[in-house]
């Protein structure tokens, strides 16, 4: 029975992990490498399907994740816990799993052409990518810091590799090294923080930590320096992964240097996983202390919004600009955590869940457009290279404009709803001034997002620029169906998503709310 439950909970992760192995095995025996992408995508879709199938299981059940005195409890039923309480499944996790798998699928679509053109090994790539997703799923379902940390590392380590996947490229390998050093550093810090928490509370399970903290608080010890250090170390681990200032510095370099599909994946999925995983950890394990956490996070959030947006202004390399923009978005997302902490309400968290999906759509789209342009002609990711795109590649330009508008947060796009929901949470938490800061910063961000649009439409291309063939054109296999279709498909899917969800955000809003549904009924 116990095992049975564990398997149920783990099932999406297992499916994805098995797919990873399968992809690598098939890679060994099959010459046609384009099958691998299909296989990986199928694995991810199966994982998502399994998760969706589990969605209905817990409606109306009792909540296990008893959290803090304000009454915030997280969904999930005891019956769904597995492996000695190390993992637990709930709507929250299901939402996250589906999100990760969906991002994974789009990332696979974006990657295939890129890899094929450069002659890079695709089997390992997809294998690693699927393992990363497995790690993310683990983060979402963990209810124990051990499981959490292992999942965290399962996600992180392959990411270092993917960042340097085109290892002969100096920039890619440099990105990889920087990511590795800072990442491992932060992992160690996180681990030490978790160890100190364990030392303070004597427990590794979220529930145990919460209970321990409650005991400490009752004894008047909760505020001592020991715990402060422990909390800060954990927050550091979180801030690093979501690239919050001042733990962000790796992000621009890594995003710029890493292969573009990997950048897209990191900017969306890894960030999402970090938010999902840490949100669960923070709220379930330390929810009672969250009001105070929130105040600390305000500093982070403001710094992140300001520095991310301001540093994006002078960037003329689009990948780098998007990196800073992704930092800025991390700042907005952090507002959701703060709001949830301040108000003791779950709106902030569901706002984060919604925003993550929205952000994934538009950001994957934007990176996808870059990949697509690069697949069609020589392009160096510079702003100037976009000049005249509105005339040369009208469809692409329209989509790019759509993604930029969405990133700015203008209706009727999904990015607007993300911001709206987030600001709603912040204002409801009584932090209107913080929302004003965010609003001012998003006005600043409009400048650099719209600059992309104006380069595409208001400027003319230099003579002959568009006519050049792609730089790395040799390595395409003869006879294989054009992998460009994958890129185009991903971009179009993202574009449609941005628009359709922008016009009819109801279902996604419902899902994001429903992910925390059990809280309400108790």
């Amino acid at each position, binding site marked *: 029975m116990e095992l049975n439950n564990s398997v149920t909970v783990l099932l999406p992760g297992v499916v994805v992990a098995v797919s990873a192995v399968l992809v690598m095995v098939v890679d060994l025996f099959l010459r046609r490498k384009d099958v691998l992408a299909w296989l990986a995508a199928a694995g991810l879709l199966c994982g998502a399907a399994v998760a969706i199938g589990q969605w209905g299981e817990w409606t109306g059940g009792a909540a296990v994740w008893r959290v803090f005195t304000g009454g915030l409890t997280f969904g999930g039923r005891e019956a769904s816990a597995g492996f000695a309480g190390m993992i637990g499944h709930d709507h929250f996790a299901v939402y996250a799993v589906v999100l990760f798998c969906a991002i994974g699928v789009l990332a696979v679509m974006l990657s295939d052409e890129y890899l094929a053109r450069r002659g890079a090994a695709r089997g390992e790539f997809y294998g690693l990518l699927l393992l990363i997703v497995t790690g993310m799923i683990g983060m979402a379902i963990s209810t124990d810091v051990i499981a959490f*940390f292992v999942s965290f*590392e399962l996600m992180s*380590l392959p990411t*270092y590799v993917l960042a340097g996947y085109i290892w002969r490229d100096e920039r890619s390998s*440099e990105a990889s090294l920087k990511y590795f050093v800072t990442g491992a550093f932060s992992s*160690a810090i996180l681990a030490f923080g978790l*160890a100190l928490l*364990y030392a303070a509370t004597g*427990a590794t*399970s979220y529930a145990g930590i919460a209970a321990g903290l409650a005991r400490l608080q009752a004894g008047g010890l909760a505020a001592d320096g020991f715990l402060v250090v422990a909390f800060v170390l954990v927050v550091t681990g979180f801030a690093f992964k979501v690239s919050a200032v001042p733990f962000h510095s790796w992000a621009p370099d890594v995003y710029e240097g890493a292969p573009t599909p990997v950048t897209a994946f990191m900017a969306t999925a890894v960030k999402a996983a970090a938010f999902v995983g840490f949100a669960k950890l923070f709220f379930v394990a330390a929810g009672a202390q969250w009001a105070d956490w929130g105040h600390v996070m305000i500093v982070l959030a403001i710094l992140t919004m300001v520095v991310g947006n301001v540093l994006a202004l002078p960037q003329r390399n689009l990948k780098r600009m998007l990196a800073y923009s992704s930092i800025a978005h991390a700042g907005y997302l952090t507002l959701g955590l703060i709001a949830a902490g301040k108000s003791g309400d779950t709106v902030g968290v569901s706002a984060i869940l919604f925003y993550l999906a929205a952000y994934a759509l538009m950001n994957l789209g934007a990176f996808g457009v870059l990949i697509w342009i690069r697949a069609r002609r020589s392009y160096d990711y510079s702003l100037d290279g976009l000049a005249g795109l509105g005339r040369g590649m009208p469809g692409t330009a329209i989509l790019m404009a759509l993604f930029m508008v969405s990133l700015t947060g203008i209706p009727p796009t999904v990015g607007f709803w993300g911001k709206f929901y987030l600001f709603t949470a912040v204002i409801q938490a009584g932090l209107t001034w913080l929302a004003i800061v965010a609003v001012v910063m998003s006005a600043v961000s409009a400048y650099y997002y719209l600059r992309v649009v104006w380069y595409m439409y208001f400027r003319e291309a230099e003579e002959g620029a568009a006519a050049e063939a792609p730089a790395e054109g040799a390595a395409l296999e003869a006879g294989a169906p054009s992998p460009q279709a994958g890129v185009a498909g991903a971009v179009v899917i993202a574009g449609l998503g941005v628009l359709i969800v922008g016009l009819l955000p109801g279902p996604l809003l419902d899902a994001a709310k429903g992910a925390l549904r059990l809280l309400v009924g108790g």
Partner: protein
Amino acid sequence: MNALFWWLLVAFLLFSIGAFGVLARRNVILVVMSLELMLNAVNLALVATANFRAGAEGAGVLFALFIIVIAAAEVAIGLAIVIANYRNRRTVQVDTYDELKG
């Protein structure tokens, strides 16, 4: 002051030494080693807690085991990345890797 405090203090010192190494050493190999040191400090803290803290769950040891495995994987990946960089640049001085900036 109980024993746990001293163990944790040692762990903290180890951790700090590791952190200092990461921040200060210019040789990438040494940086990677410093990272390992930090993880080992964590292990020490975990094991010490599991042993000396009253009422602690035994899971600390389990955690330490996991971290040992993770550390191994990390070293393997780290060194591979270092080698890739060395091939491109012919140096392991970490501060020379600054093509990406701004």
